[in-house]
């Protein structure tokens, strides 16, 4: 967005959760087949207030407070989707989404395929992950790799209010099931969001910061953390290019590879644990498709291979922090 466009709405700034709320409200207004279903999303407005006010506006038939029956209300969303509606099912924590895997992995993801391309399951599974502040092992996981692995699912992880709104709009309009992963520490962050409707198409990475020395790939809450690190590194004379894929599936390889060809050095920062992670897969794509451009090994800075502990000091060392990012970038830039 150009500065001129931004000034047209006085650079309106709203929170990530408000941006998501706007996307839901706008799409529900535009299309009567869109409805929301989840635990505590109606009267309570959702744990993080993403669905606040929707019940009053659209009524209980389209903003449905479901029992704590994740597998079945998600299954109901799949069933409604294959008959032509566009449900947005909300699972309170990504950890609880393990209860709905059959419906997402065996049903929604494979419906179009198993029906020989005839059927569609246009639904969004909204949930949130990542560490908060002491939410412990069953409310803090980053499980995107699990969904990334499944053919038939699209996977979205917005890092800014602007992306959150535009991508949720695109996800709702998409004809395939989309897993939409928010981050609990991002809900209260603010950023520019135009007042007018817009879409951020799935499959387009965003260069969050340009730089010539090294490519840093990060998503979700690792993006603001990496941008903060990049500012400090800039003061040292290291210019970091920060790429946010925004959607892990489909993955915008071209934007990533173009940046790698320019900088020749790569750091991937992910909150999720290293083993079997998306970062490793992106590293593999880069080494295969841009090997000749690399001046040093690709670094993957990831969460520790552990469950998330309750104690705050222990929690902190489990996921990459700003100093960790700074260190790994310095080392990679200095590597021969």
């Amino acid at each position, binding site marked *: 967005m150009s500065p001129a466009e931004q000034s047209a709405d006085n650079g309106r700034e709203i929170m990530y959760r408000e941006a998501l709320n706007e996307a839901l409200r706008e799409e529900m207004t535009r299309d009567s*087949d869109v409805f929301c279903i989840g635990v505590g999303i109606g009267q309570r407005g959702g744990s993080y207030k993403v669905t606040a006010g929707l019940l009053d506006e659209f009524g209980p038939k389209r903003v449905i407070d479901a029992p704590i029956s994740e597998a079945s209300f998600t299954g*109901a969303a799949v*069933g409604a989707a294959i*008959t032509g509606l566009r449900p947005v099912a909300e699972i309170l924590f990504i950890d609880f989404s393990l209860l709905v895997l059959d419906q997402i992995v065996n*049903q929604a993801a494979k419906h179009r395929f198993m029906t020989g391309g*005839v059927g569609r399951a246009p639904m969004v599974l909204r949930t949130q992950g990542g560490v908060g502040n002491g939410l412990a092992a069953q409310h803090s996981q980053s499980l995107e790799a699990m969904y990334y692995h499944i053919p038939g699912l699209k996977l979205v992880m917005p890092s800014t209010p602007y992306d959150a709104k535009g991508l949720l709009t695109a996800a709702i309009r998409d004809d395939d099931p989309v897993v939409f992963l928010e981050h609990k520490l991002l809900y209260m962050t603010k950023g520019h969001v135009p007042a007018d409707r817009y879409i951020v198409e799935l499959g387009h990475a965003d260069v969050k910061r340009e730089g010539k020395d090294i490519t840093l790939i990060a998503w979700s809450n690792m993006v603001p953390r990496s941008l903060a690190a990049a500012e400090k590194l800039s003061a040292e004379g290291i210019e970091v290019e920060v790429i946010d894929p925004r959607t892990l599936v489909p993955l915008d390889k071209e934007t990533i590879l173009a940046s790698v060809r320019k900088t020749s050095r790569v750091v991937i920062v992910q909150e999720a644990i290293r083993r079997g992670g998306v970062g490793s897969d992106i590293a593999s794509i880069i080494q295969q498709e841009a090997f000749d451009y690399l001046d040093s090994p690709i670094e993957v800075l990831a969460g520790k291979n552990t469950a998330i502990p309750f104690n705050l000091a222990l929690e902190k060392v489990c996921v990459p922090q700003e100093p960790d990012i700074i260190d790994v970038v310095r080392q990679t830039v200095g590597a021969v």
Partner: protein
Amino acid sequence: MHDKELLSELYRQIYTIRLFETRCIKLYRQGLIRGYFHPYLGEEAIAVGVCSALNDDDYIVSTHRGHGHCIAWGAELNRMVAELLGKQTGYCGGRGGSMHIADVRAGNLGANGIVGAGIPMGVGAALGSSIREDGKVTAIFFSDGAANNGVFAEAMNLAAIWNLPTILVLENNHYAVSTPIEQLCRTKNLADRAAGYGVENHIVDGNDVLQVYAQAKDAADRCRNGKGPVLLECNTYRHQGHHVNDPGDYMPKDKLEYYRGEKDPLRIARQYLIDQAGATEEEVVTIESEVEAALDQAVLFAEESKEPDVNEFLQEVKNN
């Protein structure tokens, strides 16, 4: 005296399913059909009774033992057999096979390889109808085995609290794969579970097509009048093991004999057609000959159909 046209149609469909399964098992034995094949033999009256009681634009949700549901819903035999043979002309272009046949455009939302998974999906179709107020009813077929899966309880509750227009058709064939239901459930009737969720429920002789038809008609009316859901426990018995390669040694011989003989849904429906609609033996045989000809044609069609093109498939999945 029942309507002759209705009884002829019910019998025609039951006979079609019976013959379809019998013929396709032969194709399986010849190695033309691969994978899993769960025959609907012995349970035909349930699919036929329920589907005949619904409107063309309603929905059904099927199971891994689903050929009967598809045929009762009006599936083309050509495309059915072709899918079982994995051919491009099959309902799913050979991508689905026996356990995944669906015709979503016609309202058949699909068979399912996961026991119980279709129950919440069917509830979702009914939820959609409730949101759209389109007056449609969804019949969800599932088994006694699925009734011991958590989603059965959850989904029945969702249907109950939202008064959804759905008929939960519990096909109680008395075996979860090979384990008798008596070992897996303490209450005498699975239908009792519905009462615990405030859901109207009836126990039906699932081998008696007229009983199934009448109860399903009633249930559909209730659903359309905003009084859904309704659970129908249709008691039945398989004519063989769990799938074609399961000899079913655990099924008592006398019971099998009873269900294949006196209680055979085909026999009962044939008798209804003769006794209650006054059809002659000749008229019945005419129906049977027509079905046989249609199946001959379907098998021929499937055998002559092309396999899916491997290169086209690779193109399809290249950018997934």
